[in-house]
Each structure stands twice: as structure tokens, then as C-alpha cells.
């Protein structure tokens, strides 16, 4: 089909120079050219490993990586139905994540409400609250370890001051998850606070004004107006934090390596162990795919909730 190029009457140059032709060619294909490098990088860095993980997951690969046997769906059957350790890691992950995210929501909401006002130094205070979110997890994890040391750590000293019994923290099989939850909540509350604060700032003023005129109490306003209006922000904060909490690796690996016993062996830790400590690469691939499946399912929910019009 012939494209009719309608030139406005005022244009005099009928034979554009080479440079101009190149530019206009680029311009017409810009929607492809601009994102092309990113697309190539993603296909190579994601596509190749993903296909390979799929292929590996149906094989038994030996330690030297030289020989492998096709085993079909055996790995997946073992992961899903026979592997006690996998089941344990799912349980640990769910426990750790649900406790973390619930507490983060409560504290994050409280912080957002407190910060949702105008006062001098708000910017600086907000930034100070964000430091746990940006600080290097390795460094903060080792500091938590120092503070949680059962015999001479400062946290047990603080408990003693408050008249509470000392804790074993990450050394105790029942206290290890609550301790790691504390670390994760410390890290995650700033994020929840940020999202909810942005949500609060964008709420319309009118419902609050009319509620005040009607003589509603602060609690009533919060429950019946703030919470429902804030719902989208809450969902976004919850889903982001759920995914990031399911993925936590650095803190747990550094502080407990999944121990004591298997008390803090999350899915991410178990994936790492099977693949890179036991070097069972075929089976490890199946474990990782199961782990990815769980994360992607939750991400899909998040995308449904997203509001950007073109997604």
C-alpha cells in the first residue's frame, strides 16, 4: 500500500539531507528503538535463565555438572508431595511473612497518622525514619546479632531494665522467628508508612469536614472514613511488603542460616541450600520454580489492584 505523505504547503525542502532522513527514520521507529536495549537485556538475562531453570528442573544433575539424567516431573512430585523440608520451609515462610506484614501495617499506619500533619522538620524526620529501609541489610543484620547476644547483648539489658525476663532471641527455636520478625518489621515499617502517608495526603478534604460538623469522634472518622478511603494504598503496601518479606534472604542467612535446627529455614533459604550448599541443581531448580510460582501468583493479585490506567 502506498503511503501518501502530505507535506504542508510551507515546507520548501523537497529533498531532505541524509542526516535529516536518518533522524526522521529513527523518529518513526522510536517506539521500538528506545526500549530495544532493555528488551534485549531482559530476554537474555531473564529468558535464557528461565528456560534453563525449566529444563534443569526435569533433570537430575550431578555435582560436577557434567552428567545429567532426565527425570521428568519427579523433582516436582518430590518437592510438592514428599519433601518434609520444603513443607517446613513453606510453613516457616508463611509464619514469618504473616506476622511481619500484620505488624508492619499496624505500626506503619500509626506512624503515617502521626506524620500526617505539617510541622517544621517533617522532611528530615521522615528521612530519618527511612534509614532502616535503605541501610545495607548485611551491616544491620550483624548489628542485630550483636544486640541480640543472649548473655551480654544490649537488648536483654533493656529487657532487664523493664523488669522482663531475658530472651534467647535468634538462638532459641521458638524465639528465632519472632526475633527475625522484629528485624523485618524494623526494616519494613518505613515503607508502609511512606505509602500510607502518600495515600493520606491525597485524600479529599470534604468527607472529613462534614464528619467533623456532624460531631463524629476521631475514632469514628478513622474507622468509617479514613480506612475505607485509604484501602487502595493499604492493599498496595500489603502486597509489596508481602512479596518483599517472602523474598527476605540476607538477614536470615546472615543471622541464623535457617537455624537453630530448621526453625527459620524459609523458602528462600531452603532454595539456596539445595542449589548452592548441596549443589543439587536439578532439584534446586524445581524448588526455586515452586518458590517463584508462589511469588508470581501474589504479584498477579497486585497487578490487578494497580491503578495506572495503561497497566
Amino acid at each position, binding site marked *: 500500500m502506498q503511503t501518501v505523505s502530505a507535506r504542508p504547503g510551507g515546507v520548501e525542502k523537497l529533498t531532505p539531507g541524509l542526516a535529516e532522513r536518518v533522524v526522521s527514520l529513527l523518529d518513526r521507529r522510536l517506539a521500538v528503538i528506545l526500549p530495544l536495549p532493555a528488551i534485549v537485556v531482559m530476554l537474555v538475562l*531473564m529468558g*535464557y535463565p528461565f528456560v534453563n531453570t525449566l529444563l534443569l528442573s526435569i533433570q537430575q544433575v550431578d555435582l560436577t555438572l557434567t552428567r545429567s539424567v532426565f527425570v521428568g516431573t519427579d523433582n516436582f512430585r518430590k518437592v510438592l508431595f514428599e519433601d518434609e523440608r520444603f513443607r517446613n520451609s513453606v510453613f516457616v515462610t508463611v509464619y514469618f511473612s504473616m506476622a511481619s506484614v500484620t505488624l508492619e501495617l499496624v505500626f506503619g499506619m500509626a506512624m503515617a497518622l502521626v506524620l500526617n500533619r505539617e510541622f517544621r522538620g517533617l522532611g528530615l524526620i521522615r528521612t*530519618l525514619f527511612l534509614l532502616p529501609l535503605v541501610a545495607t541489610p548485611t551491616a544491620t543484620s550483624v548489628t542485630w546479632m550483636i544486640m541480640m547476644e543472649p548473655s551480654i547483648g544490649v537488648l536483654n539489658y533493656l529487657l532487664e531494665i523493664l523488669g522482663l525476663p531475658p530472651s534467647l532471641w535468634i538462638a532459641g527455636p521458638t524465639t528465632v522467628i519472632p526475633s527475625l520478625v522484629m528485624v523485618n518489621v524494623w526494616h519494613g515499617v518505613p515503607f508502609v508508612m511512606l505509602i500510607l502517608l502518600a495515600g493520606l495526603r491525597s485524600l479529599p478534604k470534604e468527607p472529613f469536614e462534614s464528619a467533623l460538623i456532624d460531631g463524629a469522634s476521631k475514632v469514628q472518622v478513622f474507622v468509617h472514613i479514613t480506612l475505607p478511603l485509604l484501602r487502595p494504598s493499604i492493599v498496595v503496601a500489603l502486597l509489596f511488603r508481602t512479596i518483599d518479606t517472602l523474598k527476605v534472604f540476607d538477614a536470615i542467612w546472615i543471622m541464623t542460616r535457617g537455624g537453630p535446627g530448621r526453625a527459620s529455614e524459609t523458602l528462600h533459604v531452603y532454595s539456596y541450600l539445595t542449589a548452592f550448599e548441596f549443589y543439587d541443581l536439578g532439584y534446586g531448580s524445581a524448588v526455586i520454580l515452586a518458590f517463584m510460582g508462589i511469588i508470581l501468583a501474589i504479584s498477579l493479585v497486585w497487578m490487578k489492584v494497580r491503578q495506572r490506567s495503561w497497566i
Partner: protein
Amino acid sequence: MKRLLHEPMSRTTARRIENVVSGLILTLALIAFLFLFFWMFISSFKPNLLITRYPPAWAFSPTLEHYVQVFRQNPFLVYMSNSLIIALSSVGVSLAIGLPAAYSIVKYKQGPLALALLVIRMLPGISFMIPLFILYKRLGLLDTHPGIIVTHVLTVLPLITWVMLGFFEDVPGELEDAALIDGCSQLGAFTRVVIPLSVPGITAAAILSYIASWNNFIFVLILGGPKTMTLPLAVYGFLAYGQVDWGALSAAATIVTVPVLILALAVQRYLAGGLTMGAVKG
């Protein structure tokens, strides 16, 4: 009517009480959230004799012995330069690739591309490590800078692109249109109008992703080695030698953390918006 007349006074007292209460909560929360940094710093300056004392010592004459020890016993400067090289390169590469992609996503409404980048952000670090490990082993890329940088691009690229989406959306379309009418090409409008206008956003995105790369642990843990050891891995290494030296450990932790805290304070204004990465516009 009467009630309304009394309202302003009772309201101001109520507000005053509320201010005091929320000020108290804020102070307590700040102490709770920042205590760890305080403890990290003071432990790194605590003399060895006091560091394992119980109850913990709060006042002491500071010493630099742990810092001296950290630098003397380990090639910490090499680790620092590894961290620096890897972070700067991965951010540079990701900016070159991510800025055009982000602009294109906004300009041509390429939602699926944004979505694909988001999926990478959602996936755990270990997802693609097994095939990369095997590939790297075959190609001799294990424990090499280029090999590590490539994996860091995987985390940094989605971050930069998503942070920039918000900033590019905020560039007024009229300015671009004006450039086009003046005979500028679309590409020219991007490089000569949109990019210069977005410099603050680009700076913020670059610094945030620099921090993300600087903090990364798992990629170097799996694909790195002595030649590519970064600061987080070096800190982790202090735990491995049986008896843990608390002073040196906190000194090492402080060395890793301080640059991040300084960068975070430097981009204060954009930190909030950048960290939520497209989750909210802010």
C-alpha cells in the same frame, strides 16, 4: 449555637494535647528506629575490654583500634573499590538502557514492558542463579567484575526504569510539543528537553539504584569470590572465623553503612518517591 461558640477554644486545647502526644510518639519511635545505628557506631569505637562487658558500657573514651584492625587485617580498600566499581558500572549501564525505555513506556504507553520489568523486581534474587552459575562456570565468568555487574543490572534496571516513569510523566507535554514545533525531532525532544528537565529525577534514581547495588549480597555470594568481594560480603566474612570480633564487626558494618546514610540524606527530597517505586506517585 452555644456549642459552636465554645468549639474553637476546646478545639485548640485538644489540638495542643494531640500535638504533645504525637510529638512523644514520634520521639520514642525515632529512638527505637535509630537505636541500631547508634549502637553500631558506638560499638565500633568501644575499647575491646568494654565491648563484652555486661551491663553494656555507655560512656567510654573512644578508640580507633577496630578501624585500624579492619584495614590492616583485610584488603578493605580493595573490597571498597570492588563495591564502587560494581555499583557505578551497573548504574551507568542501567541508566543508558533504562532511561530510553522509561521514556518510551510513558510516551508510547508500553504497559507490558513496564509489567515485565516489574516482574523482575518481584522475583527473588535466587530465581535465575542456577543457570547463570552454570553458564558463568563454563565461560569462566565466576568471580569476575563483568559477570557480577551483569547480574546487578538485573536489579538496578527495573528500579531505574520504574522510578523514572513517575518523573517522565511529570514533564509537561507542552514543552515537548514546543520543541517539536520548533523543528526538533522526537529523539531530539527526548535528549534535549525531557532529559535536562528530569536531571533531579535521574540523580535520585541513580543514587537509589547505587544504594541497591551497594547493598546487594546474594549475587556476589553465589557468583563472586575473593577477586570480586564487595563490602557486604566482607562484613559477612567476619562472622565466619569462629570467635567473632565484635569491635571489628561493628567497624566493618559502620564502614558499609555510612556512605549509604550520607547518600540517603543527600537525596532526601526524592527518597520517599523513589523508594516506593511507582507504587504511589510521590
